[in-house]
Protein backbone atom coordinates (compact mmCIF):
# COMPACT_ATOMS: atom_id res chain seq x y z
CA UNK A 1 0.00 0.00 0.00
CA UNK A 2 2.72 2.41 1.00
CA UNK A 3 4.77 1.36 -1.99
CA UNK A 4 1.87 2.07 -4.29
CA UNK A 5 1.43 5.48 -2.74
CA UNK A 6 5.14 6.23 -3.15
CA UNK A 7 5.02 5.18 -6.76
CA UNK A 8 1.93 7.27 -7.46
CA UNK A 9 3.45 10.39 -5.94
CA UNK A 10 6.64 9.81 -7.90
CA UNK A 11 4.61 9.68 -11.10
CA UNK A 12 2.78 12.81 -10.09
CA UNK A 13 6.11 14.53 -9.55
CA UNK A 14 7.37 13.50 -12.98
CA UNK A 15 4.15 14.72 -14.59
CA UNK A 16 4.50 18.00 -12.74
CA UNK A 17 8.01 18.53 -14.09
CA UNK A 18 6.91 17.64 -17.61
CA UNK A 19 3.99 20.05 -17.33
CA UNK A 20 6.33 22.78 -16.13
CA UNK A 21 8.60 22.16 -19.13
CA UNK A 22 6.04 21.73 -21.89
CA UNK A 23 2.89 23.61 -20.89
CA UNK A 24 4.17 26.96 -22.27
CA UNK A 25 5.03 25.33 -25.59
CA UNK A 26 1.62 23.66 -25.70
CA UNK A 27 -0.02 27.05 -25.09
CA UNK A 28 1.75 28.52 -28.10
CA UNK A 29 0.72 25.59 -30.26
CA UNK A 30 -2.90 25.93 -29.12
CA UNK A 31 -3.14 29.67 -29.71
CA UNK A 32 -1.85 29.11 -33.22
CA UNK A 33 -5.32 27.75 -33.94
CA UNK A 34 -7.13 30.75 -32.42
CA UNK A 35 -8.77 33.06 -34.92
CA UNK A 36 -8.63 36.01 -32.51
CA UNK A 37 -5.69 38.38 -32.47
CA UNK A 38 -5.93 38.65 -28.70
CA UNK A 39 -5.12 35.54 -26.71
CA UNK A 40 -8.03 34.66 -24.42
CA UNK A 41 -8.97 31.37 -22.87
CA UNK A 42 -11.02 29.42 -23.77
CA UNK A 43 -10.48 29.71 -27.50
CA UNK A 44 -13.68 30.86 -29.18
CA UNK A 45 -13.06 30.18 -32.86
CA UNK A 46 -10.65 27.54 -34.17
CA UNK A 47 -8.88 28.14 -37.45
CA UNK A 48 -6.00 27.02 -39.66
CA UNK A 49 -5.81 30.34 -41.49
CA UNK A 50 -2.75 31.59 -39.63
CA UNK A 51 -0.77 28.72 -41.14
CA UNK A 52 -1.63 30.04 -44.54
CA UNK A 53 -0.70 33.57 -43.51
CA UNK A 54 2.68 32.46 -42.15
CA UNK A 55 3.37 30.31 -45.18
CA UNK A 56 2.81 33.18 -47.58
CA UNK A 57 4.59 35.85 -45.51
CA UNK A 58 7.72 36.84 -47.51
CA UNK A 59 9.50 38.03 -44.32
CA UNK A 60 9.00 34.65 -42.69
CA UNK A 61 10.17 32.89 -45.84
CA UNK A 62 13.31 35.01 -46.09
CA UNK A 63 14.10 34.56 -42.41
CA UNK A 64 13.54 30.82 -42.64
CA UNK A 65 15.81 30.54 -45.67
CA UNK A 66 18.54 32.57 -43.97
CA UNK A 67 18.32 30.44 -40.82
CA UNK A 68 18.60 27.24 -42.86
CA UNK A 69 21.58 28.53 -44.83
CA UNK A 70 23.39 29.76 -41.75
CA UNK A 71 22.70 26.52 -39.87
CA UNK A 72 23.91 24.36 -42.77
CA UNK A 73 27.07 26.37 -43.25
CA UNK A 74 27.86 26.57 -39.52
CA UNK A 75 27.29 22.82 -39.19
CA UNK A 76 29.60 21.94 -42.06
CA UNK A 77 32.29 24.35 -40.88
CA UNK A 78 32.01 22.92 -37.36
CA UNK A 79 32.18 19.34 -38.64
CA UNK A 80 35.52 20.04 -40.29
CA UNK A 81 37.05 22.17 -37.53
CA UNK A 82 35.56 20.26 -34.57
CA UNK A 83 36.56 16.80 -35.72
CA UNK A 84 40.05 17.96 -36.69
CA UNK A 85 40.47 19.51 -33.25
CA UNK A 86 39.26 16.29 -31.65
CA UNK A 87 41.77 14.22 -33.65
CA UNK A 88 44.57 16.59 -32.76
CA UNK A 89 43.85 16.67 -29.05
CA UNK A 90 43.22 12.93 -28.90
CA UNK A 91 46.25 11.83 -30.87
CA UNK A 92 48.95 14.23 -29.81
CA UNK A 93 50.64 14.49 -26.45
CA UNK A 94 51.85 18.01 -25.88
CA UNK A 95 52.24 20.57 -23.16
CA UNK A 96 49.01 22.46 -22.49
CA UNK A 97 46.83 19.83 -24.14
CA UNK A 98 44.25 19.86 -21.34
CA UNK A 99 44.07 23.64 -21.39
CA UNK A 100 43.39 23.59 -25.11
CA UNK A 101 40.66 21.02 -24.56
CA UNK A 102 39.07 23.35 -21.99
CA UNK A 103 39.41 26.39 -24.26
CA UNK A 104 37.61 24.49 -27.03
CA UNK A 105 34.66 23.70 -24.79
CA UNK A 106 34.46 27.16 -23.21
CA UNK A 107 32.40 28.94 -25.92
CA UNK A 108 29.43 26.71 -25.08
CA UNK A 109 29.58 27.70 -21.40
CA UNK A 110 30.30 31.35 -22.13
CA UNK A 111 27.17 33.55 -22.04
CA UNK A 112 26.00 34.22 -25.58
CA UNK A 113 26.02 37.96 -24.95
CA UNK A 114 29.77 37.89 -24.33
CA UNK A 115 30.44 35.89 -27.48
CA UNK A 116 28.12 38.22 -29.36
CA UNK A 117 29.63 41.46 -28.11
CA UNK A 118 33.16 40.16 -28.60
CA UNK A 119 32.49 39.07 -32.16
CA UNK A 120 30.70 42.30 -32.93
CA UNK A 121 33.56 44.51 -31.81
CA UNK A 122 36.10 42.20 -33.48
CA UNK A 123 34.24 42.49 -36.79
CA UNK A 124 33.98 46.26 -36.40
CA UNK A 125 37.64 46.56 -35.59
CA UNK A 126 38.59 44.43 -38.58
CA UNK A 127 36.23 46.41 -40.79
CA UNK A 128 34.15 43.37 -41.73
CA UNK A 129 30.59 44.08 -42.86
CA UNK A 130 27.93 42.14 -40.92
CA UNK A 131 26.31 39.57 -43.24
CA UNK A 132 25.31 35.95 -43.39
CA UNK A 133 29.02 35.09 -43.11
CA UNK A 134 29.40 36.83 -39.78
CA UNK A 135 26.33 34.92 -38.54
CA UNK A 136 27.94 31.68 -39.69
CA UNK A 137 31.18 32.50 -37.91
CA UNK A 138 29.28 33.37 -34.72
CA UNK A 139 27.31 30.13 -34.76
CA UNK A 140 30.39 28.09 -35.56
CA UNK A 141 32.02 29.15 -32.28
CA UNK A 142 29.57 27.11 -30.24
CA UNK A 143 28.71 24.46 -32.86
CA UNK A 144 32.37 23.36 -32.94
CA UNK A 145 32.04 22.39 -29.27
CA UNK A 146 29.22 19.94 -29.91
CA UNK A 147 31.11 18.19 -32.69
CA UNK A 148 34.40 18.24 -30.78
CA UNK A 149 32.82 16.76 -27.66
CA UNK A 150 31.01 14.03 -29.56
CA UNK A 151 34.01 13.00 -31.61
CA UNK A 152 36.55 13.05 -28.80
CA UNK A 153 34.23 11.00 -26.57
CA UNK A 154 33.95 8.40 -29.32
CA UNK A 155 37.69 8.39 -29.97
CA UNK A 156 38.39 7.86 -26.29
CA UNK A 157 36.07 4.87 -26.25
CA UNK A 158 37.70 3.35 -29.33
CA UNK A 159 40.54 0.94 -28.75
CA UNK A 160 43.85 2.10 -30.17
CA UNK A 161 44.64 -1.47 -31.22
CA UNK A 162 41.97 -1.17 -33.94
CA UNK A 163 44.22 1.35 -35.70
CA UNK A 164 47.28 -0.80 -35.09
CA UNK A 165 45.43 -3.85 -36.42
CA UNK A 166 44.56 -1.95 -39.57
CA UNK A 167 48.17 -0.89 -40.16
CA UNK A 168 49.34 -4.39 -39.30
CA UNK A 169 47.09 -5.79 -42.03
CA UNK A 170 48.79 -3.50 -44.56
CA UNK A 171 46.49 -0.47 -44.61
CA UNK A 172 48.01 2.95 -45.29
CA UNK A 173 47.07 5.84 -42.99
CA UNK A 174 44.47 7.00 -45.54
CA UNK A 175 42.94 3.52 -45.81
CA UNK A 176 42.84 3.20 -42.02
CA UNK A 177 41.03 6.52 -41.80
CA UNK A 178 38.54 5.54 -44.45
CA UNK A 179 37.82 1.97 -43.42
CA UNK A 180 38.24 2.09 -39.63
CA UNK A 181 38.34 5.60 -38.14
CA UNK A 182 35.55 7.16 -40.18
CA UNK A 183 33.00 4.35 -39.71
CA UNK A 184 33.86 4.31 -36.02
CA UNK A 185 33.12 8.01 -35.53
CA UNK A 186 30.36 8.25 -38.17
CA UNK A 187 27.42 8.14 -35.77
CA UNK A 188 29.16 10.61 -33.45
CA UNK A 189 29.58 12.98 -36.41
CA UNK A 190 25.97 12.65 -37.52
CA UNK A 191 24.51 13.17 -34.05
CA UNK A 192 26.90 16.06 -33.41
CA UNK A 193 25.93 17.65 -36.71
CA UNK A 194 22.22 17.38 -35.96
CA UNK A 195 22.68 18.95 -32.54
CA UNK A 196 24.85 21.71 -33.99
CA UNK A 197 22.22 22.36 -36.63
CA UNK A 198 19.49 22.63 -34.00
CA UNK A 199 21.63 24.92 -31.85
CA UNK A 200 22.40 27.23 -34.73
CA UNK A 201 18.86 27.26 -36.06
CA UNK A 202 17.28 28.67 -32.89
CA UNK A 203 20.13 30.92 -31.72
CA UNK A 204 19.15 34.53 -30.87
CA UNK A 205 21.73 36.35 -28.77
CA UNK A 206 24.92 35.83 -30.76
CA UNK A 207 22.91 36.36 -33.92
CA UNK A 208 21.64 39.80 -32.83
CA UNK A 209 25.25 40.97 -32.62
CA UNK A 210 26.51 39.31 -35.79
CA UNK A 211 23.56 39.76 -38.18
CA UNK A 212 23.34 42.79 -40.39
CA UNK A 213 20.05 43.99 -41.82
CA UNK A 214 18.80 40.46 -42.41
CA UNK A 215 16.68 38.50 -39.98
CA UNK A 216 17.05 34.88 -39.06
CA UNK A 217 13.88 33.14 -38.05
CA UNK A 218 14.41 33.46 -34.26
CA UNK A 219 15.25 37.15 -34.71
CA UNK A 220 12.09 37.64 -36.74
CA UNK A 221 10.08 35.91 -33.99
CA UNK A 222 11.71 38.08 -31.35
CA UNK A 223 10.91 41.25 -33.28
CA UNK A 224 7.33 40.20 -34.03
CA UNK A 225 6.65 39.49 -30.37
CA UNK A 226 7.96 42.89 -29.36
CA UNK A 227 5.75 44.61 -31.90
CA UNK A 228 2.83 42.45 -30.76
CA UNK A 229 0.91 42.88 -34.04
CA UNK A 230 1.18 39.35 -35.39
CA UNK A 231 0.99 37.14 -32.32
CA UNK A 232 -1.05 34.29 -33.88
CA UNK A 233 1.35 34.18 -36.83
CA UNK A 234 4.30 34.00 -34.41
CA UNK A 235 2.61 31.13 -32.63
CA UNK A 236 2.29 29.27 -35.89
CA UNK A 237 5.93 29.87 -36.84
CA UNK A 238 7.11 28.74 -33.42
CA UNK A 239 5.00 25.59 -33.72
CA UNK A 240 6.62 24.77 -37.03
CA UNK A 241 10.08 25.38 -35.64
CA UNK A 242 9.37 23.09 -32.68
CA UNK A 243 8.19 20.33 -34.99
CA UNK A 244 11.18 20.78 -37.28
CA UNK A 245 13.70 20.79 -34.42
CA UNK A 246 12.23 17.68 -32.88
CA UNK A 247 13.31 15.49 -35.75
CA UNK A 248 17.09 16.07 -35.70
CA UNK A 249 17.20 15.99 -31.88
CA UNK A 250 15.36 12.67 -31.77
CA UNK A 251 17.70 11.17 -34.38
CA UNK A 252 20.73 12.51 -32.52
CA UNK A 253 19.53 11.02 -29.24
CA UNK A 254 18.98 7.67 -30.87
CA UNK A 255 22.40 7.63 -32.50
CA UNK A 256 24.36 8.45 -29.35
CA UNK A 257 22.18 6.44 -26.99
CA UNK A 258 21.95 3.21 -28.90
CA UNK A 259 24.64 0.72 -27.94
CA UNK A 260 24.17 -1.04 -31.28
CA UNK A 261 25.93 1.83 -32.97
CA UNK A 262 28.59 2.53 -30.38
CA UNK A 263 31.73 0.61 -31.20
CA UNK A 264 33.04 -1.35 -28.29
CA UNK A 265 36.15 -3.41 -27.79
CA UNK A 266 34.36 -6.68 -27.94
CA UNK A 267 36.97 -8.80 -26.34
CA UNK A 268 38.06 -8.64 -22.76
CA UNK A 269 35.25 -10.55 -21.18
CA UNK A 270 35.84 -14.30 -21.36
CA UNK A 271 33.03 -16.43 -22.72
Amino acid at each position, binding site marked *: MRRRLARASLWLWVLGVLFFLFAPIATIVLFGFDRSNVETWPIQHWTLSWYSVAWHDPQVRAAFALSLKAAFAATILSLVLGSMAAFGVHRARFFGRDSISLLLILPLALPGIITGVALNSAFQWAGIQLSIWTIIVGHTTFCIVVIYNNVIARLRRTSNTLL*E*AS*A*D*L*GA*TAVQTFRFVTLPTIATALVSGALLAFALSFDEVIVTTFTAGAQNTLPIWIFGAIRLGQQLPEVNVVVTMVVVLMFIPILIAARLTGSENFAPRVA*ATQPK
Partner: protein
Amino acid sequence: MGDQSAIDIRGVAKSFATTTVLHDINLEIRDGEFFTMLGPSGSGKTTLLRMVAGFETPDAGTIKLHGDDVTQRPAHLRPVNTVFQDYALFPHMDVVTNVEYGLRVSGVKRDARRRRANEALAMVRLEGFGERRPAQLSGGQRQRVALARAIVNEPSVLLLDEPLGALDLKLRQEMQTELKAIQRRIGITFLYVTHDQEEAMAMSDRIAIMNKGVIEQIGSPKEVYELPATAFVASFIGTSNVIERDGRSQSLRPERLIILTASEAAPVGSHAEPGAVTDVVYLGMVTRVFVHLDSGDDLVAVQTNDGSSIASTVANPGDRVQVAWRPADAFDLDTALV
Protein backbone atom coordinates in the same frame (compact mmCIF):
# COMPACT_ATOMS: atom_id res chain seq x y z
CA MET B 1 66.47 -17.61 -48.69
CA GLY B 2 67.42 -21.16 -47.79
CA ASP B 3 68.39 -21.59 -44.18
CA GLN B 4 68.27 -17.88 -43.45
CA SER B 5 66.63 -17.04 -40.12
CA ALA B 6 63.05 -15.77 -40.21
CA ILE B 7 63.71 -13.08 -37.61
CA ASP B 8 67.12 -11.75 -36.73
CA ILE B 9 67.28 -9.32 -33.82
CA ARG B 10 70.69 -7.73 -33.16
CA GLY B 11 71.60 -5.48 -30.25
CA VAL B 12 68.10 -4.11 -29.81
CA ALA B 13 67.56 -1.74 -26.88
CA LYS B 14 64.62 0.41 -25.90
CA SER B 15 63.81 2.90 -23.15
CA PHE B 16 60.56 4.65 -22.32
CA ALA B 17 61.23 7.93 -20.54
CA THR B 18 63.66 6.93 -17.78
CA THR B 19 63.01 3.18 -17.68
CA THR B 20 64.96 0.80 -19.86
CA VAL B 21 62.64 -1.95 -21.01
CA LEU B 22 65.06 -3.85 -23.26
CA HIS B 23 68.83 -4.19 -22.91
CA ASP B 24 70.88 -5.33 -25.91
CA ILE B 25 68.61 -8.14 -27.14
CA ASN B 26 70.06 -10.69 -29.57
CA LEU B 27 67.73 -13.30 -30.95
CA GLU B 28 67.59 -15.47 -34.02
CA ILE B 29 64.39 -17.27 -34.90
CA ARG B 30 64.49 -20.04 -37.50
CA ASP B 31 62.16 -20.27 -40.45
CA GLY B 32 59.04 -22.29 -39.61
CA GLU B 33 59.75 -22.28 -35.91
CA PHE B 34 57.16 -21.93 -33.14
CA PHE B 35 59.11 -19.55 -30.93
CA THR B 36 57.83 -18.23 -27.63
CA MET B 37 58.96 -15.25 -25.59
CA LEU B 38 58.05 -16.09 -22.02
CA GLY B 39 58.30 -13.79 -19.05
CA PRO B 40 56.44 -11.95 -16.32
CA SER B 41 54.73 -8.63 -17.07
CA GLY B 42 57.29 -5.88 -17.49
CA SER B 43 59.91 -8.26 -18.84
CA GLY B 44 59.90 -6.51 -22.24
CA LYS B 45 58.51 -9.40 -24.26
CA THR B 46 55.53 -7.45 -25.64
CA THR B 47 57.71 -4.45 -26.50
CA LEU B 48 60.00 -6.74 -28.48
CA LEU B 49 57.02 -8.24 -30.32
CA ARG B 50 55.68 -4.76 -31.09
CA MET B 51 59.06 -3.83 -32.56
CA VAL B 52 58.91 -6.79 -34.92
CA ALA B 53 55.36 -5.72 -35.88
CA GLY B 54 56.49 -2.13 -36.44
CA PHE B 55 54.51 -0.40 -33.67
CA GLU B 56 57.67 0.58 -31.80
CA THR B 57 61.10 1.61 -33.01
CA PRO B 58 64.19 0.40 -31.17
CA ASP B 59 66.61 3.00 -29.78
CA ALA B 60 69.50 0.87 -30.98
CA GLY B 61 70.04 -2.32 -32.96
CA THR B 62 68.49 -3.88 -36.05
CA ILE B 63 65.60 -6.19 -36.84
CA LYS B 64 65.73 -8.31 -39.98
CA LEU B 65 62.95 -10.41 -41.47
CA HIS B 66 64.35 -13.10 -43.78
CA GLY B 67 67.50 -11.04 -44.18
CA ASP B 68 65.62 -7.84 -44.97
CA ASP B 69 66.35 -4.94 -42.61
CA VAL B 70 62.94 -3.61 -41.47
CA THR B 71 64.07 -1.66 -38.39
CA GLN B 72 62.73 1.68 -39.64
CA ARG B 73 59.95 0.37 -41.86
CA PRO B 74 56.36 1.30 -40.89
CA ALA B 75 54.01 -1.48 -39.79
CA HIS B 76 51.87 -1.54 -42.93
CA LEU B 77 54.87 -2.33 -45.13
CA ARG B 78 56.12 -5.32 -43.12
CA PRO B 79 55.33 -8.90 -44.18
CA VAL B 80 54.11 -9.83 -40.71
CA ASN B 81 50.66 -10.03 -39.16
CA THR B 82 49.59 -9.89 -35.55
CA VAL B 83 46.98 -11.60 -33.43
CA PHE B 84 46.22 -9.08 -30.70
CA GLN B 85 45.44 -9.84 -27.11
CA ASP B 86 42.08 -8.05 -27.30
CA TYR B 87 41.65 -9.45 -30.87
CA ALA B 88 41.07 -5.92 -32.24
CA LEU B 89 38.30 -7.07 -34.57
CA PHE B 90 36.62 -4.20 -36.39
CA PRO B 91 33.22 -3.95 -34.66
CA HIS B 92 31.46 -2.33 -37.62
CA MET B 93 32.37 -5.12 -40.06
CA ASP B 94 31.02 -8.65 -40.20
CA VAL B 95 33.36 -11.61 -39.77
CA VAL B 96 34.21 -12.21 -43.42
CA THR B 97 34.85 -8.49 -44.01
CA ASN B 98 37.19 -8.51 -41.04
CA VAL B 99 39.06 -11.52 -42.40
CA GLU B 100 39.43 -10.14 -45.92
CA TYR B 101 40.56 -6.69 -44.69
CA GLY B 102 44.25 -7.26 -45.40
CA LEU B 103 43.50 -8.51 -48.92
CA ARG B 104 41.11 -5.62 -49.54
CA VAL B 105 43.62 -2.91 -48.66
CA SER B 106 46.24 -4.58 -50.82
CA GLY B 107 43.89 -4.52 -53.80
CA VAL B 108 42.86 -8.17 -54.19
CA LYS B 109 39.67 -8.49 -56.26
CA ARG B 110 36.44 -9.06 -54.41
CA ASP B 111 35.75 -12.65 -55.55
CA ALA B 112 39.29 -13.81 -54.89
CA ARG B 113 39.47 -12.27 -51.45
CA ARG B 114 36.05 -13.65 -50.46
CA ARG B 115 37.18 -17.14 -51.45
CA ARG B 116 40.45 -16.85 -49.54
CA ALA B 117 38.70 -15.38 -46.49
CA ASN B 118 36.27 -18.28 -46.46
CA GLU B 119 39.19 -20.73 -46.76
CA ALA B 120 40.85 -19.09 -43.77
CA LEU B 121 37.59 -19.27 -41.81
CA ALA B 122 37.36 -22.96 -42.67
CA MET B 123 40.88 -23.48 -41.38
CA VAL B 124 39.88 -22.10 -37.98
CA ARG B 125 36.63 -24.10 -38.14
CA LEU B 126 34.31 -21.11 -38.48
CA GLU B 127 32.53 -21.94 -41.75
CA GLY B 128 29.16 -20.25 -41.93
CA PHE B 129 30.04 -17.51 -39.43
CA GLY B 130 31.01 -14.99 -42.11
CA GLU B 131 27.96 -12.79 -41.80
CA ARG B 132 27.97 -12.43 -38.04
CA ARG B 133 29.24 -9.38 -36.22
CA PRO B 134 32.16 -9.77 -33.78
CA ALA B 135 29.81 -8.80 -30.92
CA GLN B 136 27.71 -11.86 -31.68
CA LEU B 137 30.61 -14.28 -31.17
CA SER B 138 32.01 -15.93 -28.07
CA GLY B 139 35.53 -15.15 -26.88
CA GLY B 140 36.92 -18.33 -28.43
CA GLN B 141 35.25 -17.61 -31.76
CA ARG B 142 36.58 -14.04 -31.83
CA GLN B 143 40.02 -15.42 -31.19
CA ARG B 144 39.67 -17.70 -34.23
CA VAL B 145 38.48 -14.81 -36.40
CA ALA B 146 41.53 -12.80 -35.34
CA LEU B 147 43.72 -15.75 -36.29
CA ALA B 148 42.00 -16.18 -39.65
CA ARG B 149 42.32 -12.45 -40.38
CA ALA B 150 46.07 -12.68 -39.80
CA ILE B 151 46.88 -15.92 -41.67
CA VAL B 152 44.77 -15.10 -44.73
CA ASN B 153 47.53 -12.67 -45.78
CA GLU B 154 50.11 -15.48 -45.75
CA PRO B 155 52.59 -13.46 -43.68
CA SER B 156 56.17 -14.61 -43.48
CA VAL B 157 55.92 -14.39 -39.70
CA LEU B 158 52.84 -14.50 -37.49
CA LEU B 159 53.04 -12.55 -34.23
CA LEU B 160 50.79 -13.58 -31.36
CA ASP B 161 50.48 -11.31 -28.32
CA GLU B 162 49.01 -13.40 -25.47
CA PRO B 163 46.19 -14.46 -27.79
CA LEU B 164 44.68 -16.92 -25.33
CA GLY B 165 44.87 -14.68 -22.28
CA ALA B 166 41.17 -13.85 -22.17
CA LEU B 167 39.93 -17.42 -22.57
CA ASP B 168 38.98 -19.83 -19.81
CA LEU B 169 41.27 -22.77 -19.02
CA LYS B 170 39.52 -25.49 -21.01
CA LEU B 171 39.18 -23.36 -24.13
CA ARG B 172 42.78 -22.24 -23.75
CA GLN B 173 44.03 -25.82 -23.76
CA GLU B 174 41.93 -26.65 -26.83
CA MET B 175 43.25 -23.59 -28.65
CA GLN B 176 46.85 -24.49 -27.76
CA THR B 177 46.50 -27.80 -29.57
CA GLU B 178 44.76 -26.13 -32.46
CA LEU B 179 47.29 -23.32 -32.83
CA LYS B 180 50.11 -25.81 -32.94
CA ALA B 181 48.26 -27.90 -35.55
CA ILE B 182 47.60 -24.82 -37.71
CA GLN B 183 51.21 -23.74 -37.45
CA ARG B 184 52.37 -27.17 -38.65
CA ARG B 185 49.89 -27.15 -41.51
CA ILE B 186 50.73 -23.70 -42.91
CA GLY B 187 54.38 -23.89 -41.95
CA ILE B 188 54.96 -20.22 -41.19
CA THR B 189 57.05 -18.91 -38.32
CA PHE B 190 55.09 -18.14 -35.14
CA LEU B 191 56.46 -15.63 -32.65
CA TYR B 192 54.36 -16.08 -29.55
CA VAL B 193 54.31 -13.95 -26.40
CA THR B 194 52.94 -15.28 -23.12
CA HIS B 195 53.44 -15.17 -19.37
CA ASP B 196 51.98 -18.66 -19.00
CA GLN B 197 54.84 -21.14 -18.77
CA GLU B 198 52.58 -24.15 -19.32
CA GLU B 199 51.29 -22.63 -22.55
CA ALA B 200 54.88 -21.99 -23.66
CA MET B 201 55.94 -25.53 -22.83
CA ALA B 202 52.93 -27.06 -24.60
CA MET B 203 53.39 -25.37 -27.98
CA SER B 204 56.90 -24.08 -28.52
CA ASP B 205 59.83 -25.44 -30.44
CA ARG B 206 62.02 -23.04 -28.49
CA ILE B 207 61.42 -20.60 -25.67
CA ALA B 208 63.23 -17.40 -24.74
CA ILE B 209 62.76 -16.66 -21.05
CA MET B 210 62.81 -12.92 -20.47
CA ASN B 211 63.16 -10.97 -17.27
CA LYS B 212 63.66 -7.24 -16.72
CA GLY B 213 64.53 -6.54 -20.34
CA VAL B 214 67.10 -9.30 -20.85
CA ILE B 215 66.89 -12.83 -22.22
CA GLU B 216 67.81 -15.21 -19.41
CA GLN B 217 67.87 -18.37 -21.52
CA ILE B 218 66.89 -19.69 -24.93
CA GLY B 219 66.20 -23.36 -25.41
CA SER B 220 63.70 -26.12 -26.10
CA PRO B 221 61.00 -26.65 -23.44
CA LYS B 222 62.97 -29.69 -22.24
CA GLU B 223 66.24 -27.77 -22.02
CA VAL B 224 64.86 -24.81 -20.08
CA TYR B 225 63.03 -27.09 -17.70
CA GLU B 226 65.74 -29.63 -17.05
CA LEU B 227 68.79 -27.42 -17.45
CA PRO B 228 67.75 -23.96 -16.25
CA ALA B 229 70.58 -21.51 -16.77
CA THR B 230 69.68 -19.07 -14.04
CA ALA B 231 67.85 -19.03 -10.73
CA PHE B 232 65.14 -16.93 -12.38
CA VAL B 233 64.56 -19.54 -15.09
CA ALA B 234 64.57 -22.34 -12.53
CA SER B 235 61.89 -20.64 -10.46
CA PHE B 236 59.84 -19.28 -13.37
CA ILE B 237 59.59 -22.57 -15.28
CA GLY B 238 57.68 -24.91 -13.01
CA THR B 239 58.54 -24.78 -9.36
CA SER B 240 62.08 -25.24 -8.35
CA ASN B 241 64.17 -25.25 -5.22
CA VAL B 242 67.26 -23.11 -5.36
CA ILE B 243 69.87 -23.99 -2.71
CA GLU B 244 73.42 -22.92 -1.98
CA ARG B 245 75.96 -25.73 -1.64
CA ASP B 246 79.75 -25.22 -1.61
CA GLY B 247 79.27 -21.60 -2.58
CA ARG B 248 77.31 -22.45 -5.72
CA SER B 249 73.61 -21.98 -6.50
CA GLN B 250 71.95 -25.21 -7.42
CA SER B 251 68.47 -25.96 -8.71
CA LEU B 252 66.48 -29.00 -7.58
CA ARG B 253 63.20 -29.97 -9.26
CA PRO B 254 60.53 -30.94 -6.69
CA GLU B 255 59.68 -34.17 -8.50
CA ARG B 256 63.30 -35.32 -8.29
CA LEU B 257 63.35 -35.16 -4.48
CA ILE B 258 62.66 -38.27 -2.42
CA ILE B 259 61.17 -38.04 1.07
CA LEU B 260 62.46 -40.69 3.47
CA THR B 261 61.65 -41.36 7.11
CA ALA B 262 64.35 -40.32 9.58
CA SER B 263 65.65 -43.87 9.88
CA GLU B 264 65.35 -45.01 6.25
CA ALA B 265 68.55 -45.58 4.27
CA ALA B 266 68.99 -43.28 1.26
CA PRO B 267 69.07 -44.99 -2.16
CA VAL B 268 72.58 -45.89 -3.30
CA GLY B 269 74.44 -42.97 -4.83
CA SER B 270 72.05 -40.27 -3.57
CA HIS B 271 72.65 -37.50 -1.16
CA ALA B 272 70.30 -37.13 1.88
CA GLU B 273 69.81 -34.28 4.35
CA PRO B 274 67.69 -34.26 7.52
CA GLY B 275 64.85 -31.81 8.16
CA ALA B 276 61.33 -31.35 9.48
CA VAL B 277 58.04 -31.34 7.56
CA THR B 278 56.36 -27.92 7.68
CA ASP B 279 53.31 -28.63 5.51
CA VAL B 280 51.68 -31.32 3.42
CA VAL B 281 49.31 -30.46 0.56
CA TYR B 282 47.40 -33.31 -1.01
CA LEU B 283 46.47 -32.58 -4.66
CA GLY B 284 45.05 -35.90 -5.84
CA MET B 285 47.59 -37.17 -8.34
CA VAL B 286 50.47 -35.73 -6.35
CA THR B 287 51.22 -34.54 -2.84
CA ARG B 288 53.39 -31.51 -2.11
CA VAL B 289 55.59 -31.85 0.96
CA PHE B 290 57.30 -28.75 2.37
CA VAL B 291 60.44 -29.46 4.37
CA HIS B 292 62.65 -27.15 6.40
CA LEU B 293 66.16 -28.62 6.26
CA ASP B 294 68.38 -28.46 9.34
CA SER B 295 70.88 -26.60 7.13
CA GLY B 296 68.33 -23.75 6.91
CA ASP B 297 66.98 -24.23 3.35
CA ASP B 298 63.28 -24.68 2.62
CA LEU B 299 62.43 -27.28 -0.02
CA VAL B 300 59.25 -28.42 -1.69
CA ALA B 301 59.05 -32.03 -2.85
CA VAL B 302 56.33 -33.41 -5.13
CA GLN B 303 55.57 -37.07 -4.59
CA THR B 304 53.41 -39.04 -7.02
CA ASN B 305 50.59 -40.81 -5.23
CA ASP B 306 51.27 -44.13 -6.91
CA GLY B 307 51.89 -46.02 -3.64
CA SER B 308 55.65 -46.17 -4.01
CA SER B 309 56.51 -43.59 -1.37
CA ILE B 310 55.41 -44.44 2.13
CA ALA B 311 56.84 -41.35 3.77
CA SER B 312 54.87 -38.80 1.74
CA THR B 313 51.54 -40.47 2.40
CA VAL B 314 52.03 -40.60 6.15
CA ALA B 315 54.06 -37.42 6.64
CA ASN B 316 52.55 -34.83 8.95
CA PRO B 317 53.72 -31.32 9.75
CA GLY B 318 56.41 -31.54 12.44
CA ASP B 319 57.63 -35.04 11.45
CA ARG B 320 61.37 -35.58 11.18
CA VAL B 321 62.31 -36.77 7.65
CA GLN B 322 65.22 -36.93 5.25
CA VAL B 323 65.20 -35.40 1.76
CA ALA B 324 67.32 -37.29 -0.76
CA TRP B 325 68.41 -36.48 -4.33
CA ARG B 326 70.90 -37.77 -6.82
CA PRO B 327 73.79 -35.35 -7.28
CA ALA B 328 73.08 -35.43 -11.04
CA ASP B 329 69.66 -33.84 -10.41
CA ALA B 330 71.16 -30.74 -8.77
CA PHE B 331 72.06 -28.24 -11.49
CA ASP B 332 74.52 -25.46 -11.08
CA LEU B 333 72.92 -22.16 -11.99
CA ASP B 334 74.85 -19.55 -13.92
CA THR B 335 75.39 -17.31 -10.91
CA ALA B 336 76.82 -14.53 -13.02
CA LEU B 337 73.36 -13.70 -14.31
CA VAL B 338 71.47 -13.91 -11.04
